[in-house]
């Protein structure tokens, strides 16, 4: 599909904005519609559009498979890490207030909760994006037979 001019140009114009929009949804989830899962899907859609227009090999030259796999694992690690950090600090699993590292004033607790939510959402975003890219990869290579 590389010889088709219109999809190539549209994809080149669209992909940066899709990535920016994905990060916007990820960072804006508590104020508007969105959150980690949706942001991950949008980020993956940008990569899927690139591999639709330029071919799977071209995309995997920029985003290798092993890095997609590592991102998938790293997102889960981030999520579990925040949860285990709460456990190790003596609180409940995923207790964000333990991220304040001992500070007890309301300002620090509030900041720690925002930080914990952002970390967890980032983990969800990374994992969902990597899983979606892997799913498309599997579909695309299975249809090649």
């Amino acid at each position, binding site marked *: *599909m590389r010889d088709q001019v219109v999809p190539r140009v549209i994809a080149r114009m669209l992909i940066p904005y899709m990535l920016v929009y994905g990060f916007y949804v990820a960072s804006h989830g508590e104020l*508007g519609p969105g959150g980690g899962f949706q942001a991950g899907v949008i980020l993956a*859609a940008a990569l899927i559009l690139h591999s639709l227009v330029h071919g799977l090999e071209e995309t995997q030259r920029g985003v290798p498979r092993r890095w997609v796999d590592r991102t998938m694992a790293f997102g889960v690690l981030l999520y579990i890490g925040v949860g285990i950090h709460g456990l190790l600090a003596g609180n409940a699993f995923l207790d964000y207030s333990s991220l304040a590292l001992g500070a007890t004033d309301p300002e620090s607790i509030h900041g720690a909760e925002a930080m914990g939510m952002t970390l967890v959402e980032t983990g969800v975003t990374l994992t969902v994006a990597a899983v979606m890219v892997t799913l498309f990869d599997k579909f*695309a290579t299975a*249809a090649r037979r």
Partner: protein
Amino acid sequence: MNPVLIASVLVLIGLALVLIRTLRGPGVFDRILGVNMIGTKAVILLCLLGFLEDRGGFLDIALLYALINFVGTIAILKFVEFRRLGA
């Protein structure tokens, strides 16, 4: 009567007509065009509903729907034309 509400109803009527074309459409490209147009009308309907309820968040969803709709149409067209998604 609220003009935005009237516009929403008109878009819904257009949606029904496009749905008929999508279900009957003699060729596969008619159906793909119908599905694409349903997506576009959904974007417009989301914007109108956002104005109707005065919630700006609907515009975010409409923008997302437009992006995903484009990617989906490209994917279906590529699969119909080349029978594979990877190359």
